[in-house]
């Protein structure tokens, strides 16, 4: 990472007449495109030579911080190591140069990749079957809720449109429910950060016959395992609802417990969190959805199946209108190259090592928590799972906020934790180390966090003014939102 801002835009390097491409000669003869169908003006795209473009993006990359640069303790994001072998497998030309609508006999290898990952995810979660079509976690949530509503509709129970969601949930949960046409019923958390069972009972009593589902992440966003899960699932099932597992926090459960055994019916997981595929600055991700036995017919199509020793695609005939057997959440079989990476990761670890993922990540989280709780306010004591939440510095008299601590961490070469989430605590700071981090890395982070606490006491201004050594200092996001400039054309017109 370069701590000086590079700062240029490719448009500013453009010089009319330059070229960075070479194409074969047009040997097909000229065919005229009707002039009424042509755009009036060319798109104002840059004109550069090849090396200028390569240097530009290389320089841009050096103003970025990735997992390969250093520790990335972002809570609920599971920023684990992205092994190069996965990249090598995803770059194979045999996976890149195939069209999704080729004859199935010519893509048996690709179909097997999909099928093998479906089976592996079933093994790891206890679900009967998976779809790999959703492209992200939120996309998986929406898909899962669609499956749940399809199930209720098939039973002629289509008025069920209420979804119970804890107040500590990821923001995507209520948003996905709303997109799926459901109403959200928020269930409170207790003082020790778990679902308030009495509140849940009351909500269900108030809605005896329209609960579609309850969405939960377990461990929850405070990093706490919901111990009442058997009783919660029973309560919701007795009321006719299904249990949805948000797999954003699945990592600590690997090797220890499976969502299906906790009583969940439908779940998604994130290949870009739990299964080591790179986040890529915000995608492409992948959000496979698993279902328990009986719900398979509602999985979106197309879906990969195995018949004898051949792989096949399940895709019912098109009908004139929507049917529950014809849920579609994307045109093909999902983000295939992300799926290749995840399978490569699972095969590399194998059944022996994947069991250690959960326990090692939990050990790391508890180690940081116990090492820092003298300086940072730990609102909920006891064992955490893969992550935990501090409510800012213990000593609030310095006026140093969670934002300040997060920004100061950047100066020391660490990515910031997730901040101001969950909403239950004003100064929330959510820390998640993964199983890949060594004791030396954790000790280094702990020392820096202690240092920052000390700075906050002795020299608070240096923390409040952080970061100081990054390419840029804090940004004016009010200005950005008040007078949005979203394109180069708008910028140039200023």
């Amino acid at each position, binding site marked *: 990472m370069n701590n000086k801002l590079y700062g240029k835009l490719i448009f500013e390097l453009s010089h009319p007449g330059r070229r960075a491409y070479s194409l074969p000669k047009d040997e097909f003869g000229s065919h005229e495109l009707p002039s009424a169908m042509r755009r009036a003006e060319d798109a104002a795209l840059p004109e550069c030579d090849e090396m200028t473009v390569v240097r530009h993006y290389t320089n841009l990359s050096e103003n970025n911080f990735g997992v390969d640069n250093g520790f990335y303790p972002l809570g609920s994001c599971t920023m684990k190591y992205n092994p190069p072998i996965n990249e090598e497998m995803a770059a194979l030309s045999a996976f890149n140069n195939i069209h999704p609508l080729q004859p199935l006999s010519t893509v048996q290898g690709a179909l097997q990749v999909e099928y093998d990952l479906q089976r592996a995810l079933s093994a790891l979660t206890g679900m009967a079957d998976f779809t790999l079509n959703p492209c992200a976690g939120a996309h998986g949530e929406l898909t899962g809720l669609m499956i749940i509503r399809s199930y209720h509709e098939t039973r002629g129970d289509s008025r069920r449109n209420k979804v119970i969601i804890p107040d500590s949930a990821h923001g995507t949960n209520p948003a996905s429910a709303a997109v799926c046409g459901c109403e959200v019923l928020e269930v409170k958390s207790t003082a020790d950060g778990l679902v308030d069972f009495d509140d849940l009972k009351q909500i269900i009593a108030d809605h005896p016959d329209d609960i579609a589902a309850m969405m939960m992440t377990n461990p929850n966003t405070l990093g706490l395992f919901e111990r009442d899960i058997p009783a919660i699932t029973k309560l919701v099932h007795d009321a006719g609802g299904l249990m949805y597992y948000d797999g954003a926090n699945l990592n600590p459960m690997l090797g220890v417990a499976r969502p299906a055994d906790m009583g969940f019916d439908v779940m998604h997981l994130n290949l870009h969190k739990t299964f080591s595929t790179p986040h890529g600055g915000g995608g492409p991700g992948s959000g496979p959805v698993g279902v328990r036995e009986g719900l398979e017919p509602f999985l979106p199509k197309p879906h990969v199946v195995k018949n004898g020793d051949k792989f096949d695609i399940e895709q019912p005939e098109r009908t004139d209108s929507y049917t529950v057997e014809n849920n579609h959440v994307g045109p093909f079989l999902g983000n295939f190259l992300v799926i290749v990476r995840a399978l490569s990761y699972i095969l590399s670890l194998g059944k022996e090592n994947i069991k250690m993922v959960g326990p090692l990540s939990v050990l790391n989280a508890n180690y940081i928590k116990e090492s820092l709780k003298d300086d940072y306010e730990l609102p909920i004591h006891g064992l955490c799972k893969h992550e935990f939440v501090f409510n800012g510095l213990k000593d609030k008299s310095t006026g140093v906020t969670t934002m300040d601590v997060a920004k100061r961490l950047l100066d020391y070469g660490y990515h910031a934790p997730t901040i101001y989430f969950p909403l239950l605590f004003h100064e929330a700071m959510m820390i998640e180390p993964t199983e890949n981090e060594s004791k030396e890395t954790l000790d280094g982070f702990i020392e820096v966090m202690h240092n920052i606490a000390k700075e906050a006491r002795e020299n608070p201004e240096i923390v409040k003014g952080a970061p100081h050594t990054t390419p840029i200092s804090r940004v004016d996001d009010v200005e950005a*939102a*008040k007078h949005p400039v979203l394109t180069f054309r708008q910028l140039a017109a200023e």
Partner: protein
Amino acid sequence: MAKVIEGLYYTESHEYVKVDGNVGTIGITDYAQNALGNVVYVDMPDVDDEVEAGEEFGAVESVKAASDLNSPVSGKVVEVNEALEDKPELVNQDAFANWIIKVELSDPSQLDDLMDAKAYEEFCNNQQ
């Protein structure tokens, strides 16, 4: 301490309405602007739109939050404060002077369901 003005009517979602004849001037309270922080955008209805008491008619956005605007009264929008389109920060400067919409009241009896200044002040104190 947030400013509260006598003679206005208040909602639990922190809107106020000031009544002149049959026209109600609606905005968000000082308490609300303070809680939101720097306002960057105010989403307003069009003139002649109908609004209903308790129903959403727009939203106020800051960088880190967004809050729906709920109308204290029912009626027809007769004016919107166009100054807020370019300068949403006016709401932070003086939330009472920089109203959002004016509504022709269709049912003045709805005012009876709202809080007066004293009740609202107490309501705000209990929020903390």
